[in-house]
């Protein structure tokens, strides 16, 4: 189990290890996988920009709430970036081994976090939490 996890981590780092697995899929599918990876990276970058924007522009929020929202966005952005690589490698492996594509709870988590933050800021503007 541990050895298996370690060999997957090595595949994150070494393209040759990944290419030794299974057979090379149609390159159009690999390119689609690459675009999905880039879309996740963009999502991460947008969350980072959002966190910095909250810190810079929502100066009417109380400092505690502003820092909480900003840091949550920054950390979520970081997790998105890491998820991009993990998902990319897992999809590539699944295609090479002719298995089902991996499923994940990350989209659900992302939706919950975005929804919660949006609701929190909206409530703050309506009932207080604003200087």
């Amino acid at each position, binding site marked *: 189990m541990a050895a298996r996890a370690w060999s997957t981590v090595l595949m994150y*780092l070494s393209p040759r290890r990944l290419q030794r697995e299974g057979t090379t899929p*149609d*390159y159009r599918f*690999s390119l689609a996988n*690459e675009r999905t990876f880039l879309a996740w990276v963009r999502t991460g*970058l947008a969350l980072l920009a959002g966190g910095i924007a909250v810190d810079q522009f929502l100066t009417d929020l109380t400092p505690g709430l502003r820092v909480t929202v900003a*840091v949550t966005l920054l950390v979520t952005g970081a997790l998105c970036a*890491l998820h991009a690589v993990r998902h990319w490698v897992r999809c590539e492996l699944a295609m090479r081994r002719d298995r089902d594509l991996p499923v994940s709870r990350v989209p659900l988590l992302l939706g919950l976090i975005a929804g919660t933050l949006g609701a929190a800021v909206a409530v703050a503007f309506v009932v207080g939490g604003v200087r």
Partner: protein
Amino acid sequence: MRAGHADATAPDPLPVRDPAVQPERTDMAWWRTVLAFAVLTLLVWRGAVMAGDPVGFAVAGIATVGWASFGWLARRRTAELRRGRPRPPAVRYAVVAMVPVTVLVPAVAAGAAFTTR
């Protein structure tokens, strides 16, 4: 065999393939990402200038270096895509592409904590 593997398991319903569009879409996805990184970098610079503290400028410098290296990567990869039939993307691109982001995140978080007004 390399590119024909999927055709053997799942026959393409279209009689003629159009491989030209896929590299182009991937090309544009790379540049969209570079653009998103540029927006982030500008925001970090704005914060540094507004706060006017050394930590903010250090973070802005890191963001700029990250953005530049990401642009360099995009240039390399899109040149590879344009060179006729693209090979399967190498994982090293994915891993190297992550470096600016993963370096940036702790720096930005630290910067945000220090520059909180």
